[in-house]
């Protein structure tokens, strides 16, 4: 799966979590721009994990602040 495909799928998954309809770019931050709290993060991560059949450990989550970083992290897992 190429990066663009991963990006498209994550954009679909993120929709119900993007309550304020923020326009998402590579630099959009989850905590700041999207105002995800810890519970939202948990549900959102679980949705991505189930969709791509991967694990994003909390150690990895700690490194992901921006949307683009998430796409990269998922892409690197699914392309392996």
């Amino acid at each position, binding site marked *: 799966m190429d990066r663009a495909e991963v990006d498209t799928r994550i954009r679909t998954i993120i929709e119900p979590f993007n309550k304020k309809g923020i326009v998402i770019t590579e630099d959009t931050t989850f905590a700041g721009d999207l105002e995800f709290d*810890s519970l939202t993060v948990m549900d959102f991560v*679980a949705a991505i994990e189930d969709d791509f059949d991967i694990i994003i*450990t909390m150690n990895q989550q700690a490194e992901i602040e921006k949307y683009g970083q998430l796409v990269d992290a998922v892409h690197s897992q699914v392309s392996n």
Partner: protein
Amino acid sequence: MSEGIIQADKPPRRTGDTPDLFSKFDDTIALRENLLASGVEDPFSLVMEQVLSPTRAICNGRDTILLGTYNYMGMTFDPDVVAAGQQALADFGSGTTGSRVLNGTYQGHKECEDALREFYDMDHAMVFSTGYQANLGIISTIAGKGDYVVLDIDSHASIWDGCAMGNAEIVPFKHNDIAAMEKRLKRIPEGAGKLVVLEGVYSMLGDIAPLKEMVRIAKENGAMVLVDEAHSMGFIGENGRGVVEDAGVIDDVDFIIGTFSKSVGTVGGFCVSNHPKFEIMRLVCRPYVFTASLPPSVVATAATSIRKLMTASAKREHLWKNSRRLHSGLTELGFTLGTDEPQSAIVAVIMPDLEKGAAMWSALLTEGLYVNLARPPATPANMTLLRCSLCAEHSDEEVETILGMFERAGKAVGII
């Protein structure tokens, strides 16, 4: 508890004094000040001036029924337990001044571990200075770099802190969700070490874990299993060994973690196991090695209490009766509870918000009833809870008195 969830980064809001390292606590300071400004008594600085029994104390000058102390089996004033502590204090002094692996292992520590081995019918028992340190020590030591810890998102702070202190990959799953746990286990790379961490009773809502299925799935997927039974020891399971015993899976779990600060009635923590190499933990587990051991009086009271809990079936029955009565009574009064059925000795009353919760807590204290106020971020789903923990020593009459207090306070605050 959910403290382990990654909190959203917030820009520091520096107000008032010169900004320093304490500026990060400004939000918490403001929250607390607003709460106290509403006129409630401070829920987090209650002083018990006198303790009259496992169920009664003088709190802030008032005779108060204790319904939030986790003193499930009421062992704190048991005459045999108190006498054992007094004797050990006289014979062995006030403290050991040393680590378990140096000068801090007395006869009493060995006897306490013997009592635990018998209580759980297991080969090994290791006593820590607190229950928090037991989870911290065991989890951080056995799950190292490259290993995976799979745990319930509502795990206690001591479990999260054990994860944070180790170097393993941390994989949480939705509370009590068997399928979510299984999916994550199956996605772990082949050959990696796996530890599944569960709790028998989750202390916030008082609900139990579906251990029969979860332990089976964990073992099928090649994981070791650790179960924290802090809130079940002494009264769940035929011999009081916890939800693992009640669910019939005690022989399949690798480690049981427990505490002396609830049913046992003193302070301390432990891990029991049948693992053939378990004793090495005494040398490699830092929260065990680099702290002073429990005072002789504490291990003597613990050992005596543990042995009495083995045969405390009458007390167990009365505790369950109390739990059922409080649960049904509060339900009839119209309160929203954490579980539909009483599953443990914890009955959690869900409050509409923190302000109403604090007002209700304060009104109950004025009535002469102490419960725990639990608030975010320690609670699941950011709920505010009034957590009630019953004691085998609460009389039937006391439980009825408690229900009357809840009714009056609930109406005064406008919750029911």
